[in-house]
């Protein structure tokens, strides 16, 4: 081929064609693996726990009794109410802290901060999100614990309050990041149009930006809730890990996740106790599934309301 001729490509399976096939195959495997892993994990957890749930576990007792005595002889008791109440109360308190906190930070970063302040804040928030949960647990154990004892004059500081604060602080950075992304996705032309009409910054945020970012903000909050349900180590360390239905923030509690983490190592594989822990896993799986489904429905509903 001389230089004056155009570079026409012949009809043959050349390098570009082969690379295209390889890239497609790799991407397909990557995509399909997400489904395979989820199904495999669920199948494993279900295999270990589902038979036990249907054959041995008294579901009425599980959801009504706080007596979790899985190693009791001769007759173990599998009451899950205290664990469910522990997880729910700690997550609830955490969200009470994390939702206003993270939305506030996100609105500040997204709508008010500019230049270096904004960039610095974003980096700091991302750094906060990267702190390992065991470090948060450590902070709960060694710093927050004595503070709560001193401040409220209570005998124990490893409580729902402690775990809730720690979990709230843990969940806030990632919620902030997602919420800020949602705010950033609102076109500037909306802000300009509203401001040009004489709306104040707050009116613009309240009446234009937040409503149009609501889908993403809901997703951010639900992600935080999911994080709260699933968090194990920090909650194990900060909550006091006591089997007890908490009636005040100053009671110790125990979370579903922490129970699995703390007890699984002590059980014989295949024993009732082992299988009971897997039932807790199934419960967690279902709750997370419902939360995600809820998020999905809300996001879709939001989308159809707006288009």
């Amino acid at each position: 081929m001389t230089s004056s001729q155009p570079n026409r490509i012949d009809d043959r399976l050349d390098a570009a064609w082969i690379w295209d096939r390889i890239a497609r195959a790799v991407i397909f495997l990557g995509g399909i693996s997400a489904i395979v892993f989820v199904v495999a994990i669920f199948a494993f957890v279900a295999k270990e726990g589902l038979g036990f749930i249907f054959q041995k576990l008294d579901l009425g007792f599980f959801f009504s009794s706080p007596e979790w005595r899985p190693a009791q002889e001769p007759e173990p008791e599998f009451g899950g109410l205290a664990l469910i109440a522990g997880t729910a109360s700690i997550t609830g308190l955490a969200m009470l802290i994390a939702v206003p906190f993270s939305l506030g930070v996100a609105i500040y970063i997204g709508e008010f901060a500019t230049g270096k302040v904004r960039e610095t804040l974003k980096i700091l928030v991302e750094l906060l999100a990267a702190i390992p949960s065991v470090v948060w647990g450590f902070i709960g154990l060694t710093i927050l614990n004595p503070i709560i004892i001193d401040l409220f004059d209570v005998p124990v500081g490893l409580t729902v309050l402690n775990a809730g604060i720690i979990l709230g602080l843990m969940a806030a950075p990632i919620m902030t990041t997602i919420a800020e992304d949602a705010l950033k996705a609102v076109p500037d032309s909306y802000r300009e149009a509203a401001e040009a009409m004489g709306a104040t910054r707050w009116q613009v945020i309240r009446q234009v930006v937040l409503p149009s970012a609501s889908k993403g903000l809901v997703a951010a909050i639900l992600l935080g809730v999911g994080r709260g349900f699933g968090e194990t180590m920090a909650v194990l360390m900060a909550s006091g890990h006591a089997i007890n239905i908490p009636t005040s923030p100053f009671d110790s509690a125990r979370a579903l996740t922490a129970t699995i983490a703390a007890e699984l190592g002590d059980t014989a594989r295949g024993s009732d106790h082992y299988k009971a822990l897997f039932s807790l896993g199934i419960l967690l799986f279902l709750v997370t599934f419902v939360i995600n489904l809820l998020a999905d429905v809300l996001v879709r509903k939001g989308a159809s309301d707006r288009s």
Partner: protein
Amino acid sequence: MVSTASEIKLSVKDLSIRYGDHVALEGASFDVRENEIFGIIGPANSGKTSFIRAINRMDEMTPGMEVHGSIEFNGKAVESWRNLYALRSRIGVVFPLPVGLPMSIFENVAFAAKLRGVKGKDALGEVVERCLRRAALWDEVKDRLDSLGSLLSGGQQQRLTIARALSQEPELLLLDEFSIAVDPVTTMRIEEVLKELKQEMTIVLVTNLTQQAQRLADRTAFFLEGQVVEVGETKAMFKGQTKDPRTTHYIEGRFG
């Protein structure tokens, strides 16, 4: 033809606008009279939009935009207004690309009235109907006021933004290339409305279409590369009575 009682609505004195090193407008000085349609023509990048943005201090939300010199609105420099939102509420702006806010048609038009403190479905409904009628959109949307503003076609959205600007009951209406996304028939209808609105407000009309300036503007300014080449009576200007030959060249389409 020209109102003799020409109170000055906007007085521009030695106005310069920069974005970093880039000069968008340099040493502009002219007046806009009350109840006139003041046309601004000129090719792209001649500083027209920057001027519009400087009037209601939109520079404050544009990073890097610097404004020097002064613009007086009703004899008071815009930068001396302490309540920026009050200033903006008295100046209506229509942007080149229509921005239907992500709310219903009704809410879009009621937005400014609500900001002013108008309350109640009836009072707001009155504002909405009046403004939509004036923007020649009422008949097309009266049965679906609750549907989203952003679902309207481009031309309808532009009329929605005009209705929204009118709902502010502005003293000064700034139109920046309003007809870019609007079909010619609708453009003519809006132009008729603008001629009527002139009785109640002052209009600054930035346009790429010199014919549009000729049809509507009492006086016209020609902007070129950040300079105000000249300001004059539109009729005279389009008859070729210009102070600068470049104006005639532009009007006749010989460059730009």
